[in-house]
């Protein structure tokens, strides 16, 4: 009998637990609803915490080790860059209040902002700038930023607030690169103290300082009171990861999330039709498209590549897969970019011409496989390409690989076609060199085209934007003609937020700088 009593005790405890949770359910269920009503009525003035819903848990909070966009969302509140961009992608002062570029485009002299301190009290000065460059350039560091700063020959401290960066070769994309993580300044003291653990104790000069992080749960940052610039308006910012896009949106609409960084394309209409939330859309600066592998059949045949290039109707993909929140692409540079080439026409799926090119190629019963990430939009895009090419008699297979395997396949050159894009960089060079220069890291098929190499190198040397524009326009024509990469769409940069969130400035890089945001 004794053991039976033990069992009923367990059952009893469980019952009590459920009753308790059941009761409290109704009680605080009401209070949540009340809170929701209040913010809806716009009396959120007392609210001093902004909750940002991210699309993933940021892997790295060390800017020099970061390689994902989701890291950057958080990094932009903790770290200032030497220079920043404005809404129209012009380069503007930040930690460097001014700079000179030598006539040979090889020496950059930065004049630093006075009175700047890191969150740990370390003064920000020329020494700190040198320390940061040296860290990124240290081969043992294995920094993903290396590619952006490898042109740096040496960094010289001129005086407390003047620093000179010597480049190995003229490199005009340099300032553009410094608007991203390569330009973020870390506290040398904190780096020396935390060593490998810096990512868990990030210290910068930004408007917010790091408070705490619970993996997969939240990252909390708080206003830095000794910030050199205008202090942040909202005191606390909480970043929370939501990998599922439906759950993310639900938390924005009916939960405590104030804004989300990535909006599902299928949800845009839903957001526009809901009065509790609003959408901010901006033309994206990146591109999506297909890497074709010219080292393998059938893509070793240029006529065949060209046939594929013109047979795909970009507008249809834009409408169906991206619900109109994208622009059809024909090059790496969207219409808003100064490097855009307006004379290149977007192919509209010219099947007659594609068929004749296919015939010219001499390939019988052509077929190939597209590798895509297991992401709904990517899959849909591949299926659309599949049906479009079926009309000219090309069989397309779709194979899904998660990102780790996909990148492995890419680097090993183990693919026929691969759907991978790029989110774009401030300087056009950052968007294309890595894919198209013969020694580019992302030139997976190791394509060596001397004309492209020469054009891209010329564009790096010149400081004259008009001249560079002409070079990039020519470059886009060559790349289109070679058709080793099929540009498909430039997707829009979308953010969604509760209606009471104000002061959000939509920067072209899609990164939220939370310090100017307020509730009303």
């Amino acid at each position: 009998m004794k053991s039976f009593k033990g069992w009923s005790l367990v059952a009893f405890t469980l019952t009590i637990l459920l009753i308790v949770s059941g009761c409290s359910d109704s009680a605080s269920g009401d209070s949540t609803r009340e809170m929701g009503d209040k913010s809806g009525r716009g009396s959120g003035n007392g609210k001093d915490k902004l909750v940002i819903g991210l699309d993933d848990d940021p892997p790295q909070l060390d800017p020099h080790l970061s390689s994902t966009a989701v890291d950057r969302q958080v990094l932009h509140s903790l770290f200032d860059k030497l220079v920043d961009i404005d809404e129209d992608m012009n380069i503007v002062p930040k930690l460097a209040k001014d700079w000179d570029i030598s006539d040979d485009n090889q020496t950059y002299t930065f004049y630093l902002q006075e009175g700047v301190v890191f969150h740990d009290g370390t003064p920000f000065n020329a020494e700190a700038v040198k320390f940061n460059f040296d860290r990124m350039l240290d081969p043992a560091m294995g920094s993903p930023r290396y590619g952006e700063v490898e042109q740096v020959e040496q960094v010289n401290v001129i005086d407390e607030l003047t620093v000179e960066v010597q480049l190995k070769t003229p490199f005009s994309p340099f300032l553009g690169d410094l608007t991203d993580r390569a330009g973020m300044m870390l506290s040398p003291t904190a780096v020396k103290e935390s060593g490998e653990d810096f990512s868990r104790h990030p210290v910068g000069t930004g408007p917010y300082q790091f408070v705490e992080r619970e993996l997969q749960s939240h990252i909390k940052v708080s206003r830095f009171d000794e910030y050199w610039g205008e202090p942040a308006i909202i005191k606390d910012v909480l970043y929370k990861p939501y990998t599922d896009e439906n759950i993310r949106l639900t938390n924005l609409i009916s939960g405590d999330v104030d804004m989300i960084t990535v909006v599902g394309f299928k949800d845009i209409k839903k957001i526009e039709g809901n009065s509790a939330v609003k959408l901010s859309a901006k033309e994206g600066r990146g591109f999506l498209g297909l890497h074709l592998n010219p080292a393998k059949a059938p893509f070793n045949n240029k006529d065949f590549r060209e046939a594929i290039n013109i047979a795909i109707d970009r507008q249809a993909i834009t409408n169906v897969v991206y619900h109109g929140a994208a622009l059809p692409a024909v090059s790496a540079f969207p219409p808003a970019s100064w490097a855009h080439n307006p004379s290149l026409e977007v192919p509209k799926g010219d099947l007659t011409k594609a068929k004749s090119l296919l015939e010219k190629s001499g390939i019988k019963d052509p077929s190939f496989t597209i590798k895509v990430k297991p992401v709904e939009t990517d899959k849909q895009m591949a299926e659309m390409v599949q049906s479009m090419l079926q009309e000219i008699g090309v069989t397309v297979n779709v194979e899904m690989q998660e990102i780790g395997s996909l990148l492995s396949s890419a680097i090993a050159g183990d693919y026929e076609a691969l759907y991978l894009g790029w989110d774009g960089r401030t300087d056009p060079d950052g968007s294309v060199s890595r894919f198209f220069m013969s020694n580019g890291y992302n030139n997976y098929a190791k394509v060596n085209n001397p004309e492209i190499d020469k054009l891209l190198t010329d564009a790096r040397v010149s400081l004259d934007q008009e001249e560079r524009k002409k070079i990039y326009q020519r470059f886009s024509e060559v790349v289109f003609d070679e058709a080793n990469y099929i540009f498909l769409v430039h997707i829009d940069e979308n953010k969604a937020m509760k209606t009471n969130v104000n002061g959000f400035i939509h920067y072209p890089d899609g990164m939220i700088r939370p310090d100017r945001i307020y509730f009303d």
Partner: protein
Amino acid sequence: MFYFLLRRFSLMVVVLLLVSIIIFSLLNILPGDPAMLILGQESSPEALEALREKMGLNDPLPVQYLHWLTDSLQGDFGKSLRDNNDVTAILLKKVPITIQLAFMSFAIAVLIAVPAAIISATRKGTSLDYLSTFFSLSGVSFPPFWLGILLILIFSVGLGWLPPSGFVSLAENPVRSVLLMLMPALALGIRLAAELTRMLRSSLLEVLQSDYIRTGYAKGLMERAVVFKHALRNSLIPVITISGLQFATLIGGVVIIETIFSIPGIGQLVYSAILARDFPVVQGAVMMMAFSVVIINFMVDITYSILDPRIKVGGER
């Protein structure tokens, strides 16, 4: 009893060792190495090599495994490849969260299954019985992740009764903590409840037809006394066995449910660690899960003898 414990314990060690070897090999067979995932599309060959060296990925596999084994035997599961955090420390933070979820799911399952099975077995052939059978069949057929999303749609988006997802620790705010975990626990618990109902029902039916139950009725006992005191207890053995086995399924379901409901437990940790090829974290977490499944099943064996004194563990007479 002592020999029984000793034998079970050594078996446990062997099982865990095998699990560790399997998970280690599987992780290394997966395409995509951690260094490349950290560097992403921005990896230069030099940076890739430097990072691989730093992470010790260039050592031969058996050497890597032995390193890991000797360290983990001392309670040190290594450091996360992503942020250099101590894996043991991460796990210790995550375990209570997942235990809370598992416990609540189990509680929900028991609270649904026991009454449902009793009603269904004692009212065999009635519409109540069919209703309960229908419920258990559909419960088994619904995948938890689907159920989870459905619950969010109904209770958060539609009715606005519950917060859609998130987590607060029990210590911080017990009411909100339980509230936030209600839907995920339900999503996991319903399936479990369905399994348990089916099992308990058939087991009860069998027991109810046995002689001693008839004797019970014959000597004039109330139905309630017969069912609760005699039948229920005697039909629990197979149910306890199933519960032990279901615990492994529960742990599997936790991975996806935690991801959907943004619960920062072991499940979500494993999910993100696998995608990032964060080997030490995956190994540590899987070992932790394997350990808990083994322990639970060990406890199930012990429970037998408590429920039915005729069963003596270790074959004692």
